[in-house]
């Protein structure tokens, strides 16, 4: 067997990032003691969820997800052919592999459990979605209420003596543990229904491909599109606020290039301005708990904590409204179109049996798939933003006690190290001396920041290890767009001749100057008519979609967030190109062909 991709043991650490390994737990590193075993497996870069090098603490977002994916794939649903997904970190980037089952007897045995269990879920979908929502709401409420005690000079008499509470040092550790538990619990819920929703979608897609081999993915998605999803709600609120600004006559304050603070300051000064701010406050909860990213990094703050993205979007929406454009998602049109397309395809099927199956499959898909979009708001956005904010408060306590300068520096410690630091600070506080961490952590945090800055400039190879003949795990194909064919293209460096190749995620063709955006915080730089070229697009980037001519991403499969949004906006998109952000420079004129998946650099 030949290595078409580098062995995980041969990947060089870029100069300046030496020692990156010490910020991650041992179980996430490739272990030379298991070289033979690990180098012969196939690992692919999960840039779709983790497109940046992972700050030490943020590794929990991966760990927590893989605890749950494997739990449901392997241990709950007993998917016959796959046990779960393993992950590793290389130069700060997350690589994953699935553990497939190949023994036919074992597959047969797992099948007996699998069928009744998934059958139960599909048969009771609405009840189980309602149960899911109750459980998610409870965790979100608990995270919202979670108290992070500070370490005061003296404990409160009432609390400690009369109420007989635990000491602040104990309670600080318990609150941290509870935050981790709640986040993990949310992530268990994350995958309870998601895999089944994707399974229905993929099945319908495969049926369509066998009946209509020429049918594009976008056409198939159109038959599912148009549902109401919580994920669209935050953006709808921005549109409503834009309309409100015009109604109140304060729209003049929203001009391009102005910061949210400047705009708000001006609004505070007038009566209609204050009325608009009251409307903003009313609409913020919980919709501004939308993350500016995908909900996997601490620095992707919620809109409520970082107003740049929503205000940039509102400036755009106000300009569009003034120009007489409609902002509402064309839901009626989407719904009418999805019926027309479905009816026509149904008519083209040869037999009644095929028509019945098509109808049943489409019905099931429309029933269960909306959850795959809606869950994101509760888990990745609201819940995750609350979690990071709770950890930030823990960071504030450590910062107050001299462990590092800023509250956010806590994210340069991994989850286990935070535990140690809390023992340290609690002991030191109780012992009446400065914590050992005051000497231990500051230099480490500084060094880790340098390492991560260096690693951010490094381009991770799309895969490591040995490419398999076939990829059996359907979720890998669906979610990440990783197929054996795709890998061969990556390995051959396809696109070297001025072209960038990816998945045709949303149809249509467009040309324009490129805007390369590697960090979500640069999203404000995007200008009207540009082609957005990014590592991965997140749902909260929807506000810039009306501005851009087309979207291109390094990472993403047919189910990726970017693909779903682009199809709804009718915007040409090519996803999963592997290296578009490296091959294309801001200002390059590019042509995006969303029908063929080819992006051409024109000059």
């Amino acid at each position, binding site marked *: 067997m030949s290595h078409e991709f580098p062995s995980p043991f041969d990947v060089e650490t870029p100069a300046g990032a030496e020692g990156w390994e010490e910020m991650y737990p041992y179980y996430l590193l490739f272990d030379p003691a298991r070289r033979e075993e690990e180098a012969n497996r196939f690992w692919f870069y999960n840039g779709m969820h983790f497109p940046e090098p992972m700050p030490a603490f943020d590794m929990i977002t991966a760990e927590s997800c893989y605890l749950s994916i494997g739990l449901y794939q392997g241990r709950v649903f007993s998917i016959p052919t796959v046990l779960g997904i393993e992950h590793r970190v290389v130069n700060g980037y997350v690589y994953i592999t699935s553990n497939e089952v190949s023994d036919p007897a074992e597959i047969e045995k797992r099948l007996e459990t699998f069928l009744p269990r998934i059958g139960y879920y599909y048969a009771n979908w609405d009840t189980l979605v309602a149960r899911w929502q109750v459980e998610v709401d409870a965790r979100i409420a608990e995270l919202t209420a979670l108290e992070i005690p500070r370490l005061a000079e003296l404990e409160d008499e009432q609390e400690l003596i009369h109420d007989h509470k635990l000491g602040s040092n104990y309670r600080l550790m318990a609150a941290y543990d509870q935050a981790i538990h709640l986040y993990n619990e949310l992530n268990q819920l994350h995958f309870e229904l998601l895999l089944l929703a994707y399974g229905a979608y*993929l099945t319908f897609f495969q049926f369509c491909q066998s009946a209509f081999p020429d049918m594009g993915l976008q056409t198939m998605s159109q038959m599912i599109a148009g549902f109401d999803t919580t994920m669209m709600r935050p953006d709808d609120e921005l549109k409503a606020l834009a309309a409100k600004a015009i109604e109140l006559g304060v729209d003049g304050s929203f001009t391009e290039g102005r910061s949210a603070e400047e705009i708000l300051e001006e609004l505070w000064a007038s009566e209609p301005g204050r009325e608009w701010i009251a409307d903003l406050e009313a609409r913020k909860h919980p919709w501004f708990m939308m993350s500016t990213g995908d909900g996997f990094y601490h620095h992707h703050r919620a809109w409520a904590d970082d107003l740049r993205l929503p205000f940039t979007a509102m400036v755009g929406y106000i300009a569009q409204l003034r120009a007489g454009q409609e902002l509402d998602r064309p839901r009626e049109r989407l719904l009418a179109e999805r019926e027309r397309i479905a009816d026509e395809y149904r008519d083209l099927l040869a037999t009644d049996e095929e028509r019945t199956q098509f109808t049943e499959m489409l019905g099931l898909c429309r029933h269960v798939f909306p959850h795959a979009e809606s869950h994101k708001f509760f888990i990745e956005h609201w819940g995750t933003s609350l979690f990071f904010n709770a950890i930030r408060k823990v960071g504030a306590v450590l910062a107050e006690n001299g462990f590092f300068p800023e509250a956010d520096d806590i994210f340069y410690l991994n989850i286990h190290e935070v535990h140690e630091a809390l023992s340290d600070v609690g002991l030191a506080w109780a012992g009446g001396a400065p914590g050992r961490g005051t000497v231990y952590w500051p230099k480490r945090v500084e060094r880790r920041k340098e390492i991560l800055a260096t690693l951010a400039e490094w381009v991770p190879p799309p895969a490591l290890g040995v490419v398999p003949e076939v990829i059996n795990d359907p979720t890998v194909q669906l979610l990440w767009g990783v197929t054996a064919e795709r890998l061969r293209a990556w390995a051959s460096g396809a696109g070297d001749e001025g072209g960038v190749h990816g998945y045709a995620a949303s149809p249509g063709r467009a040309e324009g100057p490129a805007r390369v955006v590697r960090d979500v915080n640069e999203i404000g730089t995007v200008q009207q008519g540009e082609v957005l070229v990014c590592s991965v697009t997140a749902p909260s980037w929807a506000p810039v979609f009306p501005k851009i001519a087309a979207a291109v991403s390094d990472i993403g499969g047919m189910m990726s967030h970017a693909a779903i949004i682009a199809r709804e906006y009718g915007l040409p998109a090519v996803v999963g190109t592997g290296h578009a952000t490296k091959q294309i420079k801001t200002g390059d004129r590019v042509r995006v062909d969303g029908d063929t998946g080819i992006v051409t650099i024109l000059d």
Partner: protein
Amino acid sequence: MYVVPFHSLGLDDVTLVGGKCAHLGDLTQAGFPVPPGYAVTTMGFEEVVEGHLADLLASIDPDDVTALEQKAEHVRTVVEALDVPSEIADAIAGGYEQLSADLGLTEPPVAVRSSAVAEDAADASFAGMQSTYLWLRGVDEVLAGVRRCWASYFNAEALSYRAQHGGKSGMSVAVQYMVDARVAGVMFTLNPVSGDPSSIAIDASYGLGVTVVGGEVTPDSYLFSKVTRELVRSEIGAKEVECVADHEQGGTVNREVEEERRMLPCLTPEEITRLADIGRSVERHYGGPQDLEWAIDRAIDEIFLLQARPETVWSQKRRTVLAESPLAAIAATFMGGRPTR
């Protein structure tokens, strides 16, 4: 009844006029744009040809390949030289005169094409091979064309096939007003490569469609979606030659296409949509996928259908994998396509 105009024919007339004429008649009656014309029925063929050839045909040994080719050639020479009884010749001439009157033209150009009556598709396709004679004018040329079509019934492949499989068959001839094609080609109302029934595949080139059917050019290839009504794919072919009327010598001539025209698409998106709409209507009319020949007239820019026959390859295959239930289908997905039993 030796000749029947297309507008009086329907699918019930296959034994009298063969599949091609019956379909042209049916399409005409259904209101599709078919150039006017008439069928020379099998009655003439039977009286003139089969009556004279019984002994000759009986002497053919289908296993002797070398002799078969020679015999076939001999039979064809005999047929082309046969005297056509005046009753039949007059009927054919009368049909042509009526067509001229209907069109308001003197000696209009026509295409003369065989329309075999056969019990199965294989025989029909053997029998009709190569027997299309274009840009004929006047009664004499039409009569000569008819005799050559009759003769084409006796090519070696068809003789051998009939000797082995038996079966009753015959030959009718279509005489049809000649469309002066600017662009022509074939259209399948499904994708002949993938079998996708939601696609319409169009191959098109300059001039008459014979260059496309005969593989003399690399045509433009278009794939159109019936549902999204969008051009899914278009591949522009080299289109080096075009077959056009030879106004000096009669008949047709292949001439080179000028360099600058070769790599241009020969159909506009609007023409593709119009063609696809006609294809879809014909498919609906017959309730199944069709294989069509068409042409766009140089002077009036209209699309004409020259032939329609059922598509036989994909329409007899079942493509879709059916599961017992949606749950079983989803289970199969999670199994990576392995059977769940």
